[in-house]
């Protein structure tokens, strides 16, 4: 049964958390039905834009500011310069759906997943334990073979897993998939990798090639076995 998140919150039946992806950035939302302008306001969008739902087709739905938006029908949006509303009337188009786990999102058009397929979609290790995130301290565990319907809530947390990355060829175990450059260095130092916090961090791709330096404040999304090089900065001479 699908939840009805738009009604006032009931402590006995907490609502699933809601989130949208707007212009490739993630924003939490307080409920699943809101006006387009409320959504834009919560995302900090400027006044001169309108909300456009992103479909898996060239024809997207442009909402009027006062139009009610049901996030359960699709939570991926763009902003465009102010214009008249345009409904998406093509019957075979499917809205893009962003599933979210630990502030990482992946987009699909398939609302019907399983715990297993969702972990695969999100790039989580098979050992991860998935929970649907509710507006309450108690979240709902999701088994691998359990059906997961987008309309029941797109936000999840993953627990009980670790990833192993490599820093200067040393294995470093981390318990989350998003870390800043500073956090990666600190995790490596904590695990006895011989680097210093002031060193320069670089990603290494699967072919062994060096990417652009990762600043301390840049958050990186990584996967098991990702590799990094961390070296002392240079001096003028």
């Amino acid at each position: 049964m699908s939840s009805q998140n738009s009604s006032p919150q009931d402590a006995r039946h907490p609502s699933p958390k809601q989130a949208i992806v707007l212009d490739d950035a993630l924003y939490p939302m307080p409920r699943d039905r809101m006006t387009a302008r409320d959504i834009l306001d919560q995302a900090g969008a400027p006044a001169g834009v309108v909300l456009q739902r992103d479909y898996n087709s060239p024809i997207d739905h442009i909402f009027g500011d006062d139009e009610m938006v049901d996030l359960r029908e699709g939570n991926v949006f763009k902003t465009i310069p102010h214009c008249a509303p345009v409904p998406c009337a093509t019957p075979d188009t499917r809205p893009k759906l962003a599933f979210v786990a630990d502030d990482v999102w992946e987009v699909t058009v398939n609302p019907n997943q399983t715990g297993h397929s969702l972990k695969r979609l999100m790039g989580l290790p098979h050992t991860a334990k998935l929970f649907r995130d509710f507006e309450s301290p108690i979240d709902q565990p999701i088994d691998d073979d359990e059906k997961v319907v987008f309309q029941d809530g797109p936000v999840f947390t993953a627990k009980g897993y670790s990833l192993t990355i490599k820093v200067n060829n040393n294995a470093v175990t981390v318990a989350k998939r998003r870390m800043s450059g500073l956090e990666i260095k600190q995790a490596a130092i904590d695990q006895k990798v011989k680097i210093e916090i002031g060193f320069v961090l670089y990603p290494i791709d699967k072919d062994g090639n060096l990417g652009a330096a990762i600043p301390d404040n840049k958050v990186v999304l990584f996967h098991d076995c990702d590799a990094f090089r961390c070296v002392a900065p240079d001096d003028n001479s």
Partner: protein
Amino acid sequence: MSVAIKLEVTEAINEVGASFPGHQVDIEPDDQGGAFIRVHEIDLGSAYKPSATWVGFQITFQYPFADVYPHYIRHDIARADGKVLVTPFNHNQTFALPSGGVSAVMVSRSSKRRDPVTDTAVVKLAKVLDWIRSQ
């Protein structure tokens, strides 16, 4: 008698080439086991005019136990805001290729705490480019 490029130097050259796909990479042996490398069309960003340059350096036969340093860029590079390039930029230098010297600006950034295992030639090049772009 000329000495062939050492295996370690060849591997370093290959890493540089792989990290700059699509860029022309010129290699000249230094006849001592090392080589001179020049990577073309490197973008330094809008802070520089012209914004693209070649970057040259020598990987000596002591590599990986010797630093890869200094690096050279085109001689007519300047800051777009008109400010003067100061140390470690050194004007009126020559990148001394065996085939003939090339006028250049030398960028003198040394790695005093380098680790021969992790501070490879391509890492050094990345650090130098990051530093130039951040100025």
